[in-house]
């Protein structure tokens, strides 16, 4: 900092980055690059592995199923997360801390422990089934079905919906709502016309985030879902370890990666949710 250095020498700060670049580049970057390289025929510049994805009859079906599952999870988390985030803005600091701790609970509990808990809850004649039976639905099967997987995935992904929502709702001036009410608007109309439009940035960011993360789930569908209704992550795993179709797996992995990055980039533009991921990640972890 104090000494002058020749202009051709790089800034010493770059030296400190070498270990991180070597570790991440060598252990994650090189495998991802090799996977991509295999998917284009290891130098043959062929797109046959990509066209195979769309013609093999399985991939497209699984992709559609994954998209549908992720969409349902997104809607469920939005419906549950919006009132929760709204409540967070309405209570005092103590209760807000309690609510924050609770929303982060799915984060800091081990993925396996949480999935095991869901397994117990969702078993035939388990707690959830008996709870639903109270409302007259006594033939709902949750273990090994898409509904069970949705229920379990929504719980894990709720924080990613609640935190951007909380950040958006906290910035809304509630007096606008009161003003609308005082001008004779019924509560629901006031909410829909005044409050909700102001929260749209958080809603969009939370939805894209949740959708993106839901597309990559592996352990929850594998443990709770049925093998006949596998999602894209399971297909990718199967292609790698059972079919040993490394080139095909590379193509599928590249496709998933590109879709994820596009969605994240979009979420980032829609409301700075990269910051939310970074913030949440900085405190807990997102690897599931």
């Amino acid at each position, binding site marked *: *900092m*104090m000494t002058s250095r020749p202009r051709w020498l790089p800034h*010493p*700060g770059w030296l400190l*980055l070498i*270990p*991180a*670049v070597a*570790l991440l580049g060598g*252990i994650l970057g090189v*495998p*991802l690059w*090799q996977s991509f390289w295999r998917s284009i025929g290891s130098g043959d510049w062929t797109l046959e592995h990509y066209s195979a994805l769309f013609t093999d009859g399985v991939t497209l079906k699984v992709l559609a199923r994954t998209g549908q599952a992720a969409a349902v999870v997104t809607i469920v988390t939005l419906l549950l997360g919006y009132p*929760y985030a709204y*409540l967070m803005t309405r*209570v*005092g*600091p103590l209760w807000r*801390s309690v609510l*924050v701790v*609770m929303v982060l*609970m799915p984060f*800091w*509990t*081990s*993925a*396996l*422990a949480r999935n*095991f808990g869901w397994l117990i*809850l969702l*078993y035939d*004649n388990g707690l959830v089934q008996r709870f639903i039976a109270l409302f007259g639905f006594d033939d709902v099967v949750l273990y090994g079905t898409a509904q069970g997987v949705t229920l379990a995935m929504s719980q894990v992904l*709720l924080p990613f919906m609640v935190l*951007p929502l*909380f*950040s958006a*709702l*906290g910035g809304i001036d509630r007096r606008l709502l009161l003003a609308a009410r005082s001008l004779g608007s019924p509560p629901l109309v006031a909410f829909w016309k005044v409050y909700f439009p102001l929260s749209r940035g958080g809603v969009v960011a939370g939805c894209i985030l949740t959708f993106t*993360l839901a*597309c*990559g789930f592996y352990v929850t569908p594998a*443990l709770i879902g049925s093998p006949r209704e596998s999602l894209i*992550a399971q297909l990718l*795993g199967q292609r*790698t*370890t059972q079919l040993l179709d490394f080139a095909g797996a*590379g193509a599928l992995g590249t496709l998933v*990666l590109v879709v*994820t990055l596009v969605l994240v980039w979009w979420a980032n533009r829609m409301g*700075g949710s990269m*910051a939310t*991921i*970074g*913030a*949440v*990640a*900085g*405190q*807990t972890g997102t690897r*599931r």
Partner: protein
Amino acid sequence: MTTLVEPSIEVPAPAKPSLLARWRNRRSADPTPVWLTVVGTFVALYLVLPTLIVIPMSFSEATTFVFPPRGHSLWLYRNFFTNDRWLDSLRNSFIVAACAASIATIVGTSAALGLHQLRGRRSARFMQSALMFPILVPSIVIATAVYISFLRWHLVGTLAGYVLAHAALATPFVLATVTSALGTFDPTYLRASASLGASPWRSFLTVTLPLISRGVATGAVLAFVTSFDEVVIALFIRSPRFQTLPVQMYNSVVVEIDPTIAASSSLIVVTVSLIFLVALLVNSRRTSRPGSANNRRSVVRRTR
């Protein structure tokens, strides 16, 4: 209000500071509706219940996964602590997590310091995003790619393979926490110590490191938990000779129906929750220090 778990997004203006004010709010023209409290409670239960249910299950006498558990017994715990497969995988997980966290802490702290020195440059901002990349990539994509490459590098099922993969995954978390700790670091301290004759290395040890120690410590804990809990990559690079605790737990559900997973889950849930609660208390006790909330927010702003 600086706690470990508080979301470092824009925190809304502090509202209703006291019980009295809340009581007033209840009587005001704008009360919190009852249905909202009911829905909130329901969602809170939904968030917490699946985690807590493993604890009563771990005291069950039955050999199945049926709830409610039957009887009171510690046999699952005895099983866990006497069965070699469970103990080995627990030990493996500890070794892997300790090594991976050490590497990630050193590498991540170094990178955060480097980026701090280069701050303001476009290339540095690009590097920061590039190093955060692993957080965004779905684990399964990383896992399959790493598995195929590790096959060729003879790293599948080895301690080195696990440590390297987990260290790479955990580095972004350390980078994030240390960067946020550096947010309020005043570089004039370094000029002062240099003018007093300290070498850069000595300045780092006696000035910088103590000031960012909490960020480094938080990052190290996160890195440890990230590795200890990592399932997807571990499932792919496991071997019969070497596997970690999450893999053993996965097997105990999928391959062999082994109820010992209930004891193991409870132990993990309680241990990790204690770590987080202690961190929470330590953090909230030191709120007055020029601390984390502000620098976290500044990180958020910078990453936008």
